[in-house]
């Protein structure tokens, strides 16, 4: 269940991200949908639906390599950090404390406007039509792409890279603490 997007928006975001980062069975590439990239974006835009907000994962270890699994314990924000992230995500909305240097259009609004421009039928369109519509909104496409890359290759705790499919595809082990690497693993081919 998405926390910010409607089901239709979620489907459109997933479809758009799949065009940007498509699956490739021959190479073993998972693609954005399989990796849950839309969940990554949904949890960023809906970060303040959680307490603490899902902005910064906890530390020091994920538990995958030993130690206590603490990435899921998201960090509390200071009042100033909350101000910054609410402004970035929700926009300034005319609130004076958020308009330090003028109004800020938030990510939520940029997504809503971008998805409107892609059209309500976007998820149902064929690939070439989806590409053409994405090319018609280059700024939104660039924003989606930034987030899609984060959602495919960032830590799974943020909602994307489900089951580490992105990392497995490229042979990247991800976080390494507290095990780390032996000296020989560092200097040998």
């Amino acid at each position, binding site marked *: 269940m998405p926390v910010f997007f409607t089901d239709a928006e979620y489907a459109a975001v997933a479809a758009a991200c799949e*065009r*940007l*980062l*498509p699956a*490739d069975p021959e*190479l*073993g*590439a998972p693609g954005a949908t399989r990796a849950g990239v839309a969940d990554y974006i949904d949890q960023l835009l809906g970060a303040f639906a959680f307490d603490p907000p899902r*902005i*910064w*994962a*906890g*530390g*020091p*270890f*994920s538990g995958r390599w030993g130690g206590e699994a*603490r*990435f899921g314990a998201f*960090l509390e924000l*200071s*009042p*100033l*950090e909350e*101000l*910054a*992230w609410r*402004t*970035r995500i929700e926009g300034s909305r005319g609130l004076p404390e958020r308009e*330090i*240097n003028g109004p*800020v259009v938030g990510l939520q609004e940029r997504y809503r406007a971008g998805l409107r421009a892609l059209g309500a039928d976007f998820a149902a369109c064929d690939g070439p039509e989806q590409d053409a519509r994405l090319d018609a909104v280059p700024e939104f496409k660039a924003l989606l*792409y*930034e987030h899609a*890359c*984060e959602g*495919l*290759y*960032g*830590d799974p705790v*943020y909602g994307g890279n489900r089951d580490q499919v992105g*990392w497995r*595809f*490229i*042979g*990247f082990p*991800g*976080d*390494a*603490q*507290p*095990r*780390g*690497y*032996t*000296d*020989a*693993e*560092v*200097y040998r*081919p």
Partner: protein
Amino acid sequence: MTVDARVVIVGSGPGGATFAEAITRFGWDCIMLEKGRNHLLEREPPYAPKTVFSNDEIKFVHRHVLGPDPLLEPRTYRRDEDDGERLLVGDVNNLPSTVGGGGVHADSKLPRFREEDFRLRTTYGPVEGAAVEDWPISYDDLEPYYAEVERSIGVAGDHTANPFASWRSGPYPMPPGPDMYGATLSTAAAERLGLHPYPAPTGANSVPYDGRPACNNCGFCGLYGCPIHAKGDPIAMLRRALQTGRCQLRPECVVTDILVDRRRRRATGLRYLDAAGDSHTITAEFVVLAGGAFETPRLLLHNGLANSSGLVGRHLMYHVQTLSVGGFPFRLHGHRGRSVTHLHDDHLVPDREARRAAREAGLPWIRGGIVEHGAAAGPVLEAKTYQPGPGHNPSMYHSDLRDRLWVFTMQGEDLPQPTNRVDLDPAIRDVWGRPAGRATYRPHRHEVVASAHIAPILERVLLGAGAEWSFSTTSPPLGPITALDRQNPLGLAPASKHVMGTCRMGDDPTTSVVDAQSRFHDIENLLCADSAVFVTSTGYGPTLTLAALALRAACLLTGNPLPRTNRPAG
């Protein structure tokens, strides 16, 4: 008159932490103000490390957990006045705004400067359009302080390995850590071309040291906080200062004003805002500015203080970074190990070819900087480099720009120019309502010529190491603005985190801002403990030198100068 503290320190980075450790060791007390959060140490004894730091590219690289958030604390940049009031607003050379400052995210290469770096004008001569000067202190003056901060931070290195290094009073406290695989290839190729690579002196433990564990090569080093505290800077100095009971650390407190007497010749303390936005004052006998070479002049200019020379904020220097990359036909697993394990210094010592390149360009001399032999960044950054669409998968799979890439970063010497400066942006504000700092900066022709001369050498090394292709780029871009620059204007600002020179040190109050003991000429009880005091940028990372200068300033202030060291015989 009683004061709240004998010393109040602005900023908890390598300079402030070193200063605090020294004065508290000598029995003085201090209050340290830091505008960022404390992710490093508990506030109460025994000062156990917190554990917020982790191997998380999203948090550290893409969501600026260490601060400052550019929405709250924007900076602006322009190349010169022809760009208008500013070319861009956002993240301009931001260093972490957090307890520990720049030490937190650094990959901890800690080279010393060399003897000639302190007398560049005498050694090589002046350069037209640049304010090349000698420092008012020498390498010999600083050597005991270098040795002490190397012990204090815990630096791993091999004192016999760099033929260009100046004399030392002793070896490094720890041996070097393991060589990265890619560095074994690039150092061998460099040696074949007559260069002299050596293990990078690094402030990350190679063996257990100072109660902290050895680095376990996790690979999340540069740009990340160390989850196991194998990095010594700044936790080692901060913790020892706090353990004396004579240092009070106040995070999330932003200094708004330096308070001075009526004649504006003495500092009486500071005014700051706490996390709740309430204003407080602290009175002190001495005020130490250690907010970094960008924030220190910004505060002084905001208050209109210590600027009878008109030079506060001027002679802003970065390092002009020349990035030469090589693509290999096999994987280098650069994600294992510290970010950079080797350096070479050859381009800091002009050889016949460099002298000829200078002559042909009409310059008296050129110098480059240390060359870091290192790996590429993480997979999210790599992914964003490629274009979207079906070509993305093969690129990530083959990883031309990460796992099969090796990178030389040259931290090229940046000549001081009075027109390069930090001042106050006329319109942009920070969250506390203060004018944002603005960098006005354009490299000197020296940097352009040096980069163009040295980049092909670096490319030859990479090809000799087995790379199939190689190319070079610079930050900031040295050519005309391209369409790509317009797409991402933040790329026009220098990416270097080495910010130096905005309150330069000298004996003459008309041509410098602080004296040879790091005290402001205009305000005798105001001191500077960051890289703002640098006279020249050299081609070396600034951290060890700024820490050594901070230690020297603290020792001289408290009347405890370290004994001079002697050049070993032979």
